[in-house]
């Protein structure tokens, strides 16, 4: 702990995002990470709070910012960091018009904070994410030095944006973030490349889907082998959950058609639950998969498509021309109902995303309390004094998050079932 507290002070020569990084895993372990960094970088940093690099760029530094740390923690990454270890992941980079590149993110020689010291095929690793430097002079694997990519805030078209620059051989190059489909509303937008990599979230999803698949196939086999017999082992563990979703979600909402939609509801529930729980397992990197809008977006789109493709005549009639109400009410009701068709999946998407992301961020912030009260390593008493309250709060929060993992999976499933149920219901007027 002692190393950790002092390390924070020495880290001021990094960009602000790094601090307390090792606490990404929620439980504030692996302080050895910081100790190592303190040894290697400590001396150079002393007395120089705002270093400028060869290109005259200065990263914004200052107080330890738990908010930025939390943002960093919930972000997807091109490396999988567990404590002091950094595992490279496969990169699949698509530059429209130029083709697709495959390589390992290990090429960038990233440290445990996800900052690379090498450039490869015009790509660099910054804050765990691959960025592309379109004007970089070479495609070869070249050394760019540590902390040569710096993010600064710039105002473009009246909106403040975070822009990254690479300093290489005294020249300043703009580094593009990967493309995002938010049209710039959330600070992203289309750039020169798309990142289709197996990122930390994708790998987590793959592992969880594999584990769930293996689990359910073996359970299905057990049902076949032990036909008509009482459940045993893991079969008995999953059966109550399965029966609960089947009897309390599928049957009441879908009526006679429950068997048709059961696989979708089960897939949604266990996919979301598995990923929610995976993100909470200590020492596994704390992946924020279901707390990514992209993931919940896909799930909500699936719910939206299944609902509307299965919508019967009555469903559409109730949306566009609600029977049994005066004509003038219909003119108000129809726009509301049409909006509702889209708002329903939108709320599904946002609810899951917000709940899981918030849980991850709260965990990081509770752990960060140690560094906030420790005044970034300068107040030993504050730091030590907050360890136990912070740990207690974290344990309490983890218990709540465990509950949230189940509740959110259940809520997503039950709402999807109710939307599908409403769309396929037979009305008898």
């Amino acid at each position, binding site marked *: 702990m002692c190393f950790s507290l002092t390390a924070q002070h020495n880290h001021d020569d990094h960009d602000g*995002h790094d601090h307390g990084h090792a606490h990404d895993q929620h439980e504030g372990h692996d302080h050895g990470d910081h100790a190592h960094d303190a040894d290697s970088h400590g001396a150079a940093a002393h007395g120089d709070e705002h270093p400028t690099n060869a290109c005259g760029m200065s990263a914004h530094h200052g107080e330890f910012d738990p908010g*930025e740390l939390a*943002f960093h923690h*919930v*972000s*997807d990454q091109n490396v999988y960091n567990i404590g002091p270890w950094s595992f490279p992941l496969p990169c*699949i980079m698509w530059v429209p018009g130029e083709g697709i590149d495959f390589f390992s993110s290990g090429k960038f020689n990233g440290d445990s904070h996800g900052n690379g010291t090498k450039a490869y095929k015009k790509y660099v690793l910054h804050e765990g*994410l691959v960025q592309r430097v379109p004007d970089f002079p070479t495609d070869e694997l070249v050394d760019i030095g540590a902390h040569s990519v710096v*993010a600064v*805030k710039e105002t473009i078209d009246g*909106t*403040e944006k975070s822009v990254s620059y690479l300093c290489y051989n005294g020249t300043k190059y703009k580094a593009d973030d*990967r*493309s*995002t*489909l*938010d049209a710039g509303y*959330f*600070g*992203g937008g289309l750039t020169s490349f*798309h*990142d*289709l*990599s*197996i*990122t930390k979230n*994708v790998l987590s*999803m*793959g592992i969880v*889907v594999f584990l769930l*698949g293996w689990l*359910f*196939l073996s*359970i*299905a086999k057990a*049902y*076949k082998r032990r*036909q*008509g017999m009482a459940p045993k082992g893991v079969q008995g563990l999953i*059966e109550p959950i*399965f*029966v609960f979703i*089947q009897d309390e979600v599928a049957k009441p909402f879908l009526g006679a058609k429950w*068997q048709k939609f*059961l*696989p*979708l509801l*089960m*897939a949604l529930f266990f*996919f979301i639950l598995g990923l929610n729980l995976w993100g909470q397992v200590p020492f596994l990197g704390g992946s*924020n998969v279901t707390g*990514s*809008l*992209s*993931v919940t*977006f*896909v*799930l909500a789109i*699936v719910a939206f498509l299944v609902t509307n493709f299965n919508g019967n005549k009555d469903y559409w009639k109730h949306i566009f021309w609600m029977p049994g109400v005066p004509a003038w009410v219909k003119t108000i009701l129809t726009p509301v109902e049409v909006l509702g068709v889209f708002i329903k999946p939108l709320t599904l998407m946002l609810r899951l995303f917000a709940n899981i*992301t918030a849980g991850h961020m709260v965990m990081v912030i509770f752990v960060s309390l140690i560094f906030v009260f420790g005044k970034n390593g300068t107040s030993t008493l504050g730091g030590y004094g907050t360890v136990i309250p912070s740990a207690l709060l974290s344990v309490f929060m983890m218990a709540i998050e465990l509950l949230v993992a189940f509740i959110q999976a259940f809520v997503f499933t039950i709402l999807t079932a109710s939307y599908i149920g409403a769309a396929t219901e037979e009305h008898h007027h």
Partner: protein
Amino acid sequence: MLIFLLDFNPIKPDLGLILWTTIFFLGFWWLIGRSAFSPIARALKSREDDIQGALDEAKKAKEEMANMKAENERILADAREERSKILKEAKDMKNHIVTEAKDQAKAEANKIVSTAKVEIDNQKRAAITEVKNSAGIMALEIAEKVIKKELKGKAEHEDYVNKLVDGFNLN
């Protein structure tokens, strides 16, 4: 708000993650739905039906048992009734037989008694007849003897008769 979200990556829809999520979720839905969720649901349904069937059967068996028991009791009651009837009949018959036997015996006895009486009467009559005959004969003899002997006086007569009477042994 937008400034706040500058570095907030999770909210930026990322093509790669969307693509992979689509692949993984649809794959999971299709594959596990087909080969695990549906079969499990079917297995649960058939097991539920089995259990319900077994329960129904047990209930039916119980009802049958109850019916059988009632039947048995009825048969038993019938048998008891039959038994008491038979017993009663036997008793009646016994009484009848005994009464009859008694009557018969009485009749027989009466008959024997009356036969005996008749016999006794006959014997008596024969005896009386014999006595009468003997007395007649005796009287005749006495009279003969008296006539044969000339008696001197009255006292002599009487002694003589007495002497004759004594001479007849009336056995």
